[in-house]
């Protein structure tokens, strides 16, 4: 009996072992089957998701810490189609809140492509609208009403410019794809944008450490002075209206280090609405005329002709010149701006009366090699290297070029036949205001990243003239401005400067009725702390710089000394003596 029981037990055990082995074999087979691989991959798919982490775009501040470009939160409004219960209610609600038509929204919800689980109804929706929609959803949720089920909001940043159009020509703008265009936004796009990171974000909380931290883009501090920028823009706008000019630009720079304190140009655009770009500008060079548009500057270039001649030893301040009203250069007769003969003049008189004949004589005396060598040293024909996108470099024809003629030696000396940007002129003349050292203009003051500050050092672009030459010419220009009783003068401050009235070249020769008027000046003469360049295009109230650009310079200089805390000369000297 016991033996029979033992056999039965053994058979039962063997049977169970076989079943157990079969189960194990089946488990192993299923685990390694093709279907298992598919299930595993499906499981992995739902274990997390690939997400692109976009860093917050770096902010832009002026030199005093005023925000010029920041970020604000906007939302992508979308609908999860699987969760949507009532397309009609959804279409009606979204149409009402987002300013869309009921049919448009409904069509997108109903006729979405096959396989789509989520559809974006509208992006860049403001926080106020989203808050209203969220409140409505909450009310419906409280009432257990599923009509807005599936509606979702994804927050993200949008560039915001609190000052709207202020310094728009310098800042540039950012489009919805996150790319910067023009100015600082384009030049430093990579720094500002930071590095987006795409990562697999697991839903497993044990793997939370795998979610990366994405550092924000670099914050930039500019050399611009916001208040001065606003004043300069205001003065420029008033001047365009007052003198009937088409467009204009004004730049204020510190000649000691090349820091751009203000850079105004027209037209300006509201950077929060960059869609109006194409209605304001025909091409990119018009976006910031200070750097993007080269023109024949006229007599302001006489500062450099005189600087070159003094430095080369061709003339001295007291060199005498008999002005007969015309001079022949390269077989072409050159005349003065009023076609008069001004008789005996010294070099200060040549500058004061802005005599073309005198300047053509000076360049002829220097010779082509020396004259063009100096002009190249002043940086003509090359970009200044300013840290703004879209810089033009003008054109300086030199002997050997197919379109250079001997008369160019004479006309270039008074700023015709050569094209420069306003910033190139400012940079070149900075050598005169800064003891012979030419500064590289720049807009970036400092960078802030990961809690560290990197200050941008000032750079010299060479010394085209000697320090003595610069001081001599500085004094000559101050005297010529004073003796001319120029409308550019500012009571209490001794300034140096030069007017420039240039004819405008056309396909049929020079336009005899319209001009470009310019003025370059700086001060205080004994310790230059600011330089100003003014360019007004085609003024109709007067074609002369002395009656248009010069008063604009005076107004800008007045605001500059106030906002930069530069005391009048007598007070400054008293303070220095203490």
């Amino acid at each position, binding site marked *: 009996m016991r033996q029979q029981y033992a056999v039965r037990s053994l058979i039962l055990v063997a049977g169970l072992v076989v079943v157990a082995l079969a189960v194990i074999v089946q488990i192993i087979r299923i685990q390694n089957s093709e279907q298992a691989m598919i299930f595993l991959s499906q499981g992995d798919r739902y274990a997390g998701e690939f997400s692109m982490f976009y860093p*917050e775009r770096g*902010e832009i*501040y002026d*030199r*005093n*810490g*005023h*925000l010029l470009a*920041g*970020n*604000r*939160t906007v939302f992508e409004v979308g609908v999860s189609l699987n969760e949507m219960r009532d397309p009609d209610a959804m279409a009606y609600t979204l149409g009402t809140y987002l300013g869309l038509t009921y049919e448009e929204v409904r069509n997108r919800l109903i006729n979405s492509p096959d396989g789509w689980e989520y559809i974006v109804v509208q992006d860049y929706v403001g*926080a106020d609208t989203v808050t209203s929609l969220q409140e409505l959803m909450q009310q419906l949720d409280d009432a257990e009403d599923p009509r807005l089920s599936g509606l979702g909001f994804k*927050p993200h*940043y949008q560039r*915001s410019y*609190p*000052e*709207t159009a*202020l310094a728009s020509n310098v800042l540039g703008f950012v489009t919805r794809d996150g790319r910067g265009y023009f100015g600082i936004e384009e030049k430093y796009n990579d720094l500002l944008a930071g590095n987006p990171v795409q990562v697999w974000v697991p839903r*497993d*909380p*044990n*793997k*939370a*450490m795998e*979610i*990366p*931290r994405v*550092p*924000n883009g670099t*914050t930039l*501090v500019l050399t611009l002075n*916001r*208040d001065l920028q*606003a004043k300069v823009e205001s003065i420029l706008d008033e001047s365009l209206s007052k003198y009937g000019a088409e467009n204009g630009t004004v730049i204020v720079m510190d000649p000691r280090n090349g820091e751009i304190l203000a850079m105004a140009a027209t037209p300006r655009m509201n950077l929060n609405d960059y869609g109006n770009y194409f209605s304001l500008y025909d091409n990119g060079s018009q976006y910031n005329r200070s750097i993007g548009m080269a023109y024949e500057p006229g007599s302001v270039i006489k500062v450099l002709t005189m600087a070159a001649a003094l430095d080369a030893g061709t003339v001295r301040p007291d060199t005498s010149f008999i002005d007969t009203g015309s001079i022949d250069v390269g077989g072409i007769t050159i005349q003065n701006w009023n076609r008069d003969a001004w008789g005996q003049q010294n070099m200060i008189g040549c500058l004061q009366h802005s005599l073309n004949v005198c300047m053509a004589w000076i360049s002829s005396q220097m010779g082509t090699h020396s004259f063009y060598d100096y002009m190249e040293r002043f940086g003509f024909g090359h970009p200044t290297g300013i840290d703004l996108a879209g810089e033009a470099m003008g054109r300086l024809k030199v002997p050997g070029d197919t379109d250079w003629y001997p008369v160019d030696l004479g006309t270039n000396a008074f700023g015709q036949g050569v094209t420069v940007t306003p910033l190139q002129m400012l940079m070149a003349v900075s050598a005169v205001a800064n003891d012979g050292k030419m500064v590289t203009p720049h807009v970036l003051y*400092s960078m*802030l990243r*990961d*809690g*560290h*500050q990197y200050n941008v050092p000032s750079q010299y672009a060479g010394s085209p003239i000697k320090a003595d030459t610069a001081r001599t010419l500085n004094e000559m220009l101050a005297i010529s401005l004073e003796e001319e009783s120029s409308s550019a003068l*500012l*009571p*209490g401050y001794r300034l140096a400067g030069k007017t420039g009235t240039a004819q405008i070249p056309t396909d049929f020769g020079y336009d005899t009725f319209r001009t470009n008027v310019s003025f370059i000046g700086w001060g205080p003469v004994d310790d230059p702390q600011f330089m100003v360049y003014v360019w007004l295009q085609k003024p109709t109230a007067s074609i002369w710089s002395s009656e248009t650009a010069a008063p604009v310079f005076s107004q800008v200089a*007045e605001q500059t*000394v*106030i906002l930069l*805390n530069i*005391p*009048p000369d007598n*007070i400054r000297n008293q*303070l220095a003596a*203490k």
Partner: protein
Amino acid sequence: MQAQATQITHAYKQAPWRVQRQWVGAFLLALIGIAMIAALYLDVTARAAMAGREIQELRFEITAIQRANADLETELADMTSTAAMQRRALELGYRPVKPGELDYVPVPGFSAPEPAILLAAEDTVPHDQSLPPEYSQSLIEWFDERIKFGGFQP
């Protein structure tokens, strides 16, 4: 007498019920040990999961706060923009100053203050830090570390 006592002890030890009880005891001991380890493992894993979830939520909160911060900063800049400040100043009866109306007072040792944005350039951005091992370590890894680096001190 001595031999009889040894014989009785030997017989007791070899009693079948005694051997069975020893097996049952050993089995129960092993079962209790496994249960304790399983409970401990479950506890640690649950705590780690909760901590991980908390970290995820805190990160979402950080992101939301950063967005709110950016919004507030921009809103403040809107309110203190040049146009807004000029309008408010005019409403309060101020007017632009003229050069002759300014008085300059020398202050020995005074230098213009740096803008706040530059002064604030301290290390405020959190660096990428790895979580402490307590939040991610398995029980086996914890035991392994204790054995390798010695001690079970807290």
